[in-house]
């Protein structure tokens, strides 16, 4: 890490914490920091304590974790696929997860609970990752990233076809619920869900940080990486696995939230260069901040109606992305 890296990470942590505090304060009832702190320590009135401890805190925690997971996943995919436009859903994770969730909602009917939908989404994501890796690994002796990309596209298309078929037999309520899930939301966040996310994020982040130098080398080329001492195939399998798992965990927790995993890594690379020892933690913090802010906007802008989070991240993300592209050209 560069000498300016550590202070910058501290700064990004502070910004993330500020977004976290904002997200807990703002809502149907706006609280000042003192009220939040009183509620956290268990004092004050019961309603405020319940809002803070059972609703806003788990939701903000989940938002931060989902944002971090998607951003870290995106950074990793970009390095592995040597493509600045790669993102967490590139290997069909979103399609597989959506197929699982939609199947659980429509076919499960009244028995579908948030837990079972989330589990089905995760299973669908895991199945599509396994399928994509299997297809790609079957083509040649080594994992060819171009084949992997194509396999991701076709598995995604296959999952989409499955979603359309299931939706065609859905009743109106299930249809609405299924499309709502696909637009992404953190409204059902629980401590258990946030805990599961953290259990995925922390170890995968450690694994990916250990692979930061190999990822730097792989971003140049697989031959170059090998000649710099990297075990190329092992690194690819580990990093693809870790990044896909993060994407799957994020989708299972909050549905499909686009653009976070594309724009956050992109912005981080443009601002701070290409060293993954810094990019991985920086993207995690920036992604957490981005989702905390957009989720706060999604639930407050036209309150009491909640906007779909996936739409808000895209509405905020697309102009930002275009601005970044224009800046890059000039």
């Amino acid at each position: 890490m560069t000498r300016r890296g550590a202070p910058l990470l501290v700064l990004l942590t502070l910004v993330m914490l500020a977004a976290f505090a904002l997200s807990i304060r703002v809502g149907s009832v706006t609280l000042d920091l003192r009220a939040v702190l009183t509620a956290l320590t268990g004092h004050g009135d019961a309603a405020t304590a319940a809002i803070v401890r059972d609703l806003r805190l788990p939701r903000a925690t989940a938002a931060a974790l989902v944002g971090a997971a998607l951003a870290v996943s995106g950074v990793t995919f970009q390095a592995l696929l040597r493509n600045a436009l790669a993102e967490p859903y590139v290997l069909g994770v979103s399609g597989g997860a959506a197929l699982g969730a939609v199947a659980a909602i429509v076919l499960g009917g009244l028995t579908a609970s948030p837990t079972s939908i989330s589990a089905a989404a995760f299973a669908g994501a895991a199945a599509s990752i396994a399928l994509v890796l299997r297809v790609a690994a079957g083509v040649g002796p080594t994992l060819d990233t171009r084949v992997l990309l194509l396999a991701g596209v076709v598995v995604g298309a296959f999952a989409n076809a499955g979603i359309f078929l299931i939706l065609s037999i859905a009743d109106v309520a299930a249809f609405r619920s299924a499309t709502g899930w696909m637009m992404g939301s953190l409204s059902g966040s629980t401590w258990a869900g946030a805990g599961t996310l953290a259990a995925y994020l922390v170890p995968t982040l450690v694994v990916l940080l250990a692979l930061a130098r190999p990822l730097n080398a792989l971003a140049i080329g697989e031959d170059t990486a090998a000649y710099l001492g990297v075990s190329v195939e092992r690194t690819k399998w580990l990093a693809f696995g870790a990044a896909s798992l993060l994407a799957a965990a994020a989708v299972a927790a909050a549905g499909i939230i686009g653009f976070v995993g594309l724009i956050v890594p992109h912005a981080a690379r443009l601002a701070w260069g290409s060293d993954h020892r810094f990019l991985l933690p920086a993207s995690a913090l920036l992604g957490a901040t981005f989702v905390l802010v957009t989720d706060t906007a999604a639930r407050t802008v036209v309150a009491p109606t909640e906007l779909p989070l996936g739409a808000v991240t895209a509405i905020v993300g697309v102009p930002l992305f275009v601005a970044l592209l224009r800046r890059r050209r000039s």
Partner: protein
Amino acid sequence: MTVAWLCDSVTVRYPGGRAPAVDNVSLAIAEGACTIILGPNGSGKSTLLRALLGRVPLASGAITCLGAPLASWQRPALARAVGVVPQGEHETFPLTTRALVAMGRYPHLGPWRREGAEDLAAIDNAMARCDVTQFAERMVDTLSGGEGQRARIARALAQEPRALVLDEPTASLDLKHEMEVLALLRSLAASGTTIVLVTHNLSVAAQYADRVVLLDHGSLVAEGPPAVVLSPSRVREVFGWPVELIHGETGAPYIVPVR
């Protein structure tokens, strides 16, 4: 002579390829010398190079590298002993020259260790040696072809290897840059680094190599000092075009195609 690489009946086949890419090649590459691998397009030069570096599986035969079977080398240990400048490298994301050269320390650092004084010195030395110190903070993709290639050679030198392997290092360079890169390699060989490189330029091979290896259709045609291997009749036979030798002041021949 001490041997850097020893190939014993090495054969490499690519999946679906009719003929082997490298066919039963037995060869010793001397340590501390400059060896240049020559041959027409598709003669197996780059494949032989990849075989020497453990990047293609052998269909049969065995390779010994710096005293140990190639298969027994762990990648990081091999990267500390052998630096490589591959062909057609391209940075996906913007990278400063210094960051590129610093990657040469990866095999010494492992995943977590920070660069120490020793590493910083190796990076600085390699950049000075390749004359890229003034580009340290420039992005690699803004450098000219020759400057970029010197930066990649600096990265390989930062590995502090015993041997340096280069696949057509001067392929896209103009005359001046080509000569600068070759002079650098020559001076490295003079200070004891083993150099192995692939080129298309016969005159370059004749002028700079201690030994040349001539391949055709995957087979070894001849190996030895350039003046012995590169006879006009043999070059004509292998490359399919008549050539003349012109003897310059150094005694080493220039090989010129006849119109």
